[in-house]
């Protein structure tokens, strides 16, 4: 996988610019709160339009202000685990997981792996913080994206759970099943993932 | 199909009487379609399935006539009516209606009611009568203009208006109002209800019903409801 990002945007009063390339299995955006990590993920996912720049994933241009290219989010095949989860409140956990699933049959196994097999008939409203996050991870994975964006996926998880999911992510990356762009404050996580780190602190 | 009789709302009871009588005579019961004369005339213009049109005033019949929507030779003035002054039933006053009669004193600072003279036939006749009798200027400031004559009647029935000018037929139909005086027929243009067969609704049955309307059986029903026969 190759990922090439060069974007400029206004974030509130601030002029923001970031450029990086990576062909690592796990690339990590690292930087202080408010430095623009989530905004960068939004631009890659197609949810926020950069003022200028170019985003290329695996040779396909997703965005290019010069060439007037701007693929729709659904055409980008970029799975996202949002910082605020964004589960669909009116769908059960099961239907959240299956929403974008390419191979629905894989759902039960993944749910078991994430420790949410017992929650399938719950409403998102009744999940704890950590349960919510695990469902969001499962939902994104089942859509079989060609690039997975993870925005602090281990927040709200206890140590055991966090380690379990870290293991899962490591497995995904190692088997090259799906390349990952990872946001975290925790260097320990990044080391465990053997991530190529993009330091956004100026 | 049964005949559709498009008739002004103020004819509601008598048209139903007529329909029942016609049915009793062995015909299919006609369907009374009641509404404001203006609305009915516009509907006929738009192609309403009317066989006969019974209007509460002449101007809307004229409109259809000019538009060539009436069957030639079928238009006739059918009914007449009288204009009366009504008061709530409990009010025992009698009023002699004549030139410069004390209408304003009767009403005082309260409200009296009739149809809107700008648009409702009964209001037009009332304005004409009061003008001819020389009391319109004094009466106008306390006038409440109702949407139609039955709505005017309701104000008097409930005592919210101290007096009203309505048709004799309406006064007769309500037990809650009393006729305090009758306007001289010469004080206003004649009140006539024209009838005609509508083009497109012409049929032997329609003609037969028109003849029935002008015959003795119908006359009895009209008179029982307080109408006079034209001519």
């Amino acid at each position: 996988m190759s990922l090439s990002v060069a974007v400029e945007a206004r974030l509130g009063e601030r002029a923001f610019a970031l450029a990086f390339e990576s062909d690592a299995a796990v690339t990590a955006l690292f930087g202080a709160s408010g430095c623009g990590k989530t905004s960068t993920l939004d631009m890659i996912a197609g949810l926020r339009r950069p003022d200028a720049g170019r985003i290329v994933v695996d040779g396909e241009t997703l965005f290019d202000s010069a060439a007037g290219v701007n693929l729709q989010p659904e055409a980008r095949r970029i799975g996202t685990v949002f910082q605020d989860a964004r589960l669909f409140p009116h769908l059960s956990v099961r239907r959240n997981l299956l929403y974008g699933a390419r191979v629905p049959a894989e759902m039960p196994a993944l749910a078991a792996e994430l420790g949410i097999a017992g929650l399938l008939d719950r409403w998102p409203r009744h999940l704890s913080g950590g349960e919510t996050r695990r469902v969001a991870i499962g939902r994104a994975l089942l859509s079989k994206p060609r690039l997975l964006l993870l925005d602090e996926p281990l927040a709200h998880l206890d140590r055991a759970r966090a380690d379990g999911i870290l293991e899962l992510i490591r497995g995904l990356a190692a088997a090259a099943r799906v390349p990952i762009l990872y946001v975290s404050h925790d260097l320990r996580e990044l080391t465990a993932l053997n991530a190529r780190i993009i330091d956004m602190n100026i | 199909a049964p005949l559709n009789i498009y008739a002004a709302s103020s004819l509601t009871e008598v048209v139903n009487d007529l329909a029942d009588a016609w049915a009793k005579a062995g015909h299919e019961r006609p369907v009374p379609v009641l509404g404001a004369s203006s609305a009915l005339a516009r509907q006929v213009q738009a192609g309403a399935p009317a066989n006969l049109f019974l209007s509460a005033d002449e101007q809307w019949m004229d409109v259809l006539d000019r538009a060539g929507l009436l069957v030639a030779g079928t238009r006739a003035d059918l009914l007449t009516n009288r204009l009366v002054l009504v008061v709530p039933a409990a009010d025992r006053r009698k009023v002699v209606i004549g030139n410069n009669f004390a209408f304003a004193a009767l009403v005082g600072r309260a409200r009296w009611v009739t149809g809107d003279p700008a648009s409702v036939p009964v209001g037009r006749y009332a304005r004409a009568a009061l003008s001819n009798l020389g009391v319109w200027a004094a009466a106008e400031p306390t006038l409440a203009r109702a949407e139609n004559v039955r709505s005017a009647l309701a104000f008097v029935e409930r005592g919210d208006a101290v007096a009203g000018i309505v048709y004799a037929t309406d006064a007769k139909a309500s037990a809650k109002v009393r006729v305090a005086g009758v306007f001289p027929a010469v004080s206003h243009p004649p009140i006539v209800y024209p009838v005609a067969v509508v083009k497109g609704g012409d049929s032997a049955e329609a003609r037969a019903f028109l003849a029935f309307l002008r015959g003795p059986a119908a006359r009895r029903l009209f008179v029982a409801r307080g109408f006079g026969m034209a001519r």
Partner: protein
Amino acid sequence: MSEAETLIILLSLKVALVATLFSLPLALALAWALAKPAWPGRALLDSAVHLPLVLPPVVTGYLLLIAFGRDGVLGQALAALGVSVLFSWQGAAIAAALMSLPLLVRPIRQALEAVDPRLPAAARTLGASRRRAFMSITLPLAVPGVLAGAVLGFAKALGEFGATITFVSSIPGETQTLPLAIYAALQVPGQEGVAARLSLMAVALAVAALLLSEWLARRARRYRA
């Protein structure tokens, strides 16, 4: 209940249901267009939708009569298809639908605007088209508002009087719905009892519709319980 009354009630129900079923998709489309960020002509469309509320009902009825009449554009188009809505229950349904349209559009638009746009955005990152995201996320989340609009519209369709009597006249058995029958009864002194009786029936129908919509809305909001 007399046979005539039963007929009037069934006719009223038919007219109001058909009116609501036809205006609902139109109202959804309008609400969707009005909920989108400002586009040229939006204010115009918004105003047009509100017209039946602002104009006296006779005017709306009269305009319908002109449009669908013998010489009207829509009337001639329908005539070419061999259809006439004039003076028929279908015409009554058209009048009721038009008069209730603004009452449907507002609550639906409001509900669509209240949906957090980040949710359909999340759906699109999962591969949903704009259309699927709307149908599977935005619209279901707006269901309580759609029901609120539908029940307002249905109540108005049940109660519509002025435009109906002006457009299709009050033909017993064909276009004489409950409000028209109530009005007719009020035209005859001493018939207030009949009017009251018919009014109670209209109220009963509306209450039934209301209870149904409340139940549906509660179901639609189960996930918030």
